[in-house]
Structure formats: structure tokens, C-alpha cells
């Protein structure tokens, strides 16, 4: 498996805050790589380093190397526009340009020197077809892009990104603003595109990562926790944090049967309350505990396991709070 992007010792800072901590990892060619992790873990920052969009953020600094086709993207002396042309970006929220549908797709090729009308027509048609939008817009190419639905706008952004003929497609949570049908549409297009492009998708939707990814990178608070093929990471994660994150995300989607908030309680009371709460539940039901005591995060799951219950996940939900999911056994 050949690496298309090699990330070496990359550190990123926003002022004093370190957003990426010494990341070294490779991204395989012509596959879909998913970068997973909770919000604020540095996923988008890493993506922004690839196409140097991070340069536009005030007070951001990046060190290390990101090698794409033998060229160090972070090298200050290279031509940034060329780097960006090689990487299409599908943003979180579709951002069509203030012009017609046609001009949106033709914008990139025009920048890079295609002026011939016939050639532009062909390019526009070709990439709108690849993005799966052609049939819907072919009769109104001259109408403003802002008239499209949000899902159509996202496919337009895909077509626009592809029209500059990149080798890499970067997706920053590309379906988070879309309805389920449009999301599915985008996912299908990405699966088709992976034969020709290296795709990197940032997502906090584990289901999406499972559906799409060939390779997975897990980041947590700016650190690289684990990386490997999707099978390895999803079936048999080496790191406990990865297991917790994957399970945790999946379990939140599960129906919980009871929820007990133990914030403000210390050991051993939260332990006792948890035990009581489980006692009232039937076998196989799921209890969600919310705790904010650091000892409880470790001790409560351990105690419940000792009682023969199954701890499904332990997940930090914000700065102070943790969610513990327990299934009642016995």
C-alpha cells in the first residue's frame, strides 16, 4: 500500500493552544481514509494543514513535514495555489460561489487557464455528471447556484472541486449539514470516486466511517491515538481509547432504558446509587450514568463489572462530565 500523503512530526498551534501534537502517519493512495475523533480533537486542523488553508487562520502556526508526491506542503517557499489545486475540499457547509451553476464549476478551470468555451462546456458537463448533479441542473446551468437545495449545493461543490483535476479530495464532515438522503448521495459519490482519487474524510459519525473508510486515523485531544486499516481499527482496536470512542459513539445511538445523573456525588455514594439504579432494571436493559468525579470514572465501571454487569462504554462528553453505559446482566 503506497502512501500518498506522509505526515511527519506535525505540530499545530492556535496561539498558545496546541491543536496537533507530533502527528506522524501516512495516508494511503486511492483509498478512503477516515479521520475520526470527538469534536475539538484536531481533525479539521489536520485537514487544513494539507491544503494550507490554516494559513488563513490568525495566530496559527504549523511545524513538521507533510509530503505529497515528494513535495513538502508546509515548506514556505512552495506555490500554495498549486498545492491547493491538487486537493479538492468538500466543506462542512456547502459554499457555492456567488455566480451561476455553470460558472461555479467553470471557476477553477478558468483560473488555471482554460478559456475555450467548448472545452469549458465539456468540463462542466463531465464533472457535474461525476458528482451526480447533471440530470437535475442541465436545463438551468445559467441560474444562480444559491437556488439549489442544500444537498444539490454540496454536490455542486464536489463537482467544482473535481473540475480543477485534483489528486486528493479532502472532506470536512461533508454530510453534517445535509439531510439523510443527500448524505447518502454524497457517500455514494465518494465510494465511486475512490478508484481515481485519494480521499480523506473527517467525520465524527462512526457509522459513516464504517461505511466508507478503508483506513482509519483516530485523533484525541490533538494526539494520534491509533491508525490502521478499517478492519483492524473497528474490529479489534489496539488502544482502549479507540475502543471506548467507537463503542461510546455507537452506544449513544442505542436506546437507553434509564438514566441517572450522579454529578456532584463522590465515591462511594455514586457507586451505591448506580447499584441501586441497576437493581431496579430488568436483565438486558441499559443504564446511562453521568458522573463528574474522576475517581468514579474508573471505579464505578470496575465495580459494576465485578457485579457481573457489562460496561458498554465510558465516554467523556464535555470538560467535566463522563457518560458510562452499563447493561444489566445476571
Amino acid at each position, binding site marked *: 500500500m503506497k502512501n500518498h500523503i506522509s505526515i511527519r512530526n506535525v505540530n499545530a498551534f492556535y496561539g498558545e493552544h496546541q491543536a496537533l501534537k507530533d502527528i506522524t502517519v501516512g495516508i494511503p493512495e486511492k483509498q478512503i481514509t477516515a479521520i475520526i475523533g470527538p469534536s475539538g480533537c484536531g481533525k479539521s486542523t489536520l485537514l487544513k494543514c494539507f*491544503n494550507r*488553508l490554516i494559513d*488563513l487562520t*490568525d495566530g496559527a502556526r504549523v511545524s513538521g513535514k507533510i509530503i505529497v508526491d515528494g513535495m513538502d506542503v508546509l515548506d514556505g517557499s512552495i506555490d500554495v*495555489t*498549486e498545492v*491547493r*489545486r491538487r*486537493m*479538492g*475540499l468538500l*466543506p462542512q*457547509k456547502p*459554499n*457555492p*460561489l*456567488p*455566480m*451561476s451553476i455553470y460558472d461555479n464549476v467553470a*471557476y*477553477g478551470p478558468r*483560473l*488555471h487557464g482554460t478559456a475555450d468555451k467548448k472545452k469549458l462546456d465539456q468540463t462542466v458537463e463531465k464533472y457535474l455528471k461525476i458528482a451526480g448533479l447533471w440530470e437535475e441542473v442541465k436545463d438551468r446551468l445559467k441560474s*444562480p*447556484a*444559491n437556488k439549489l437545495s442544500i444537498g444539490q449545493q454540496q454536490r455542486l*461543490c464536489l463537482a*467544482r*472541486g473535481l473540475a*480543477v483535476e485534483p489528486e486528493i479530495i479532502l472532506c470536512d464532515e461533508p454530510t453534517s449539514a445535509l439531510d439523510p438522503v443527500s448524505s447518502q448521495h454524497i457517500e455514494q459519490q465518494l465510494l465511486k470516486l475512490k478508484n481515481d482519487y485519494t480521499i480523506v474524510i473527517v467525520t465524527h459519525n462512526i457509522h459513516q466511517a464504517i461505511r466508507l473508510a478503508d483506513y482509519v486515523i483516530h485523533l484525541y485531544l490533538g494526539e494520534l491515538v491509533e491508525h490502521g486499516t478499517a478492519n483492524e481499527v473497528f474490529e479489534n482496536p489496539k488502544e482502549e481509547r479507540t475502543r471506548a470512542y467507537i463503542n461510546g459513539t455507537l452506544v449513544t445511538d442505542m436506546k437507553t432504558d434509564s438514566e441517572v445523573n450522579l454529578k456532584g456525588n463522590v465515591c462511594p455514594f455514586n457507586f451505591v446509587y448506580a447499584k441501586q439504579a441497576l437493581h431496579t432494571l430488568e436483565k438486558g436493559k441499559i443504564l446511562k450514568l453521568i458522573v463528574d468525579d474522576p475517581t468514579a470514572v474508573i471505579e464505578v465501571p470496575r465495580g459494576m463489572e465485578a457485579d457481573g454487569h457489562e460496561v458498554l462504554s465510558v465516554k467523556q462528553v464535555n470538560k467535566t462530565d463522563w457518560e458510562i453505559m452499563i447493561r444489566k446482566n445476571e
Partner: protein
Amino acid sequence: MDKRFEEKLFKVLMLASLAAVLGSLFMVIAVIIWNGAPALTFSMITQTPKGGYYMGKEGGILNAIVGSLYLAFGSMILALIISLPAALSLQKDYIGKTKAAYYIRLSLDVLWGTPSIVYGAFGFIVMLYLGMRASLLGGIIVLTFLQLPIMIRSMEEVIKMVPSELKEASYTLGATRFETTTGVVVRQALPGIVTAVLLAFGRGIGDAASILFTAGYTDSLPHSILDPVASLPLAVFFQLGTPFPEVQARAYASALILLLIVLALSITSRALSKRFMKNIIR
């Protein structure tokens, strides 16, 4: 206080202030129409004055109409050519974040508030120094200075509103700063830019003090850019100052013409804006 009473009270207050504003504006317009309409004849807009602008009761004010249009459009175009690049350079992509930009904005705000007679006096001194006579060119240049702060600051405000996602989209396609600015930022900000230009035009065509010394006043039409020109605000000023009621009525008629010109331009620019709005991303 009772919430519903509070709600009602504020509604009444808001409507009252709106009524005060609209009422006084309406009264100004009513006075102009009431006094000016009877004197507004066809010859007013087709002939130059007969018997001098101060005393003359015959002829028209074509000299002032033509002069004002020359002055206002000339200065508007000149100010636009200077303002647009200046406003664009104040984006954060260029010098917008620097200390210098802060002081530039501050001085533009001060200049915006400077009385136009100061511009006029300054222009007059410079022209004296250069040995220039009061002329169309002098008037255009001084009016341009008057309009620059208005245009730059109001353009900058709309340019600042262009969403950064749009710029990012352009950058990710491999566009340079210049390509992004001309291709995306200006397009997105166009309706606002049109409004800024209109605002400055209104100030330019309505200003009397700055052109009093610099453009002069004359009964004839200008034949070259170095001739003095008449203007509508000054026509109003001079004609209103006479003891003759007939000439005073002509001042109101001149004001009415000025009002109609501004109205026509407002309507055109609105129509233009609407056309440009079509592609805007909201």
C-alpha cells in the same frame, strides 16, 4: 412592569420616532413642491438664465443642471476608481489586520465628519497656489475628496460582510488573493458597493460649500473642463438670497429638480442592485 405593557410601550415609541422622521422629511419635500412646482416650467430645464442668476426672472437653470451632473458624475467616477481598491485593501487578507489599517479607518471616519466648507477652503488654497481658476476640474477634485471617506468606509463595511467560507472556497480551488478578490469578493459585495456609490453621489450632488470657491458659478454652460461651472445647490443658494419672490420661487424649482435627479438615480441603482442580488449567497 407588565410585559405586555412594556411591549406596547416600545412599539408606540418606535412608531413615534418613525413618524417624526418621516413627518419632517415629508414636510421638507412638501414645502419644496408647494413653492417650486408653480415656477417649474419647461424653459427652466432647457434654457440658461437671462438677466443674471441673482436678479433674472427669465430663462432657466440648464447651466446649473448640466454643471451639477458633470460635477457629480465626474467626481463619482473618480472617487469610485480610487475607493474600490482602497476598500479592498482594507480586507483582512491584505492590510486589514495591521495597526496602519486601524489608523486609516480612524482618519477616514474623521474625514467623513469634516464639514464640506473645510474641503472647499482647502481646495481653494491649493488651487490658488497652483494658479488655477475656479473650474469644473477643481470642483470635481474637491468633491472627490469629499466622497472618498464615505465610499471607502461604506464599501469596506459590505466587503467585510463577505463570508470567509466563500473566500476559502476560492482559495481551495487554487485562486490567488487577487483572483479571489476580483472574482468572488467584489461579486458578492456588488449590491452593497452600488449603495455606497449612491450614498457618496448623493452627498456630492447636494453639496454647496465645497464647490463654492472651487467650481465657481456662471450663467453659461462649460465648454472645457477648465471653465467655471454652475451647480444646483448654489443656484438654490443664490436665488433664495434675492429680495424678489419670483426668483425665490425659482430657487424652490431648482431644489425640486435636484430632488428629482437624486430620485431618478436612486431608482436606477435599486434596479441595478436587484439584478446583482440574484447570485448573492446569503
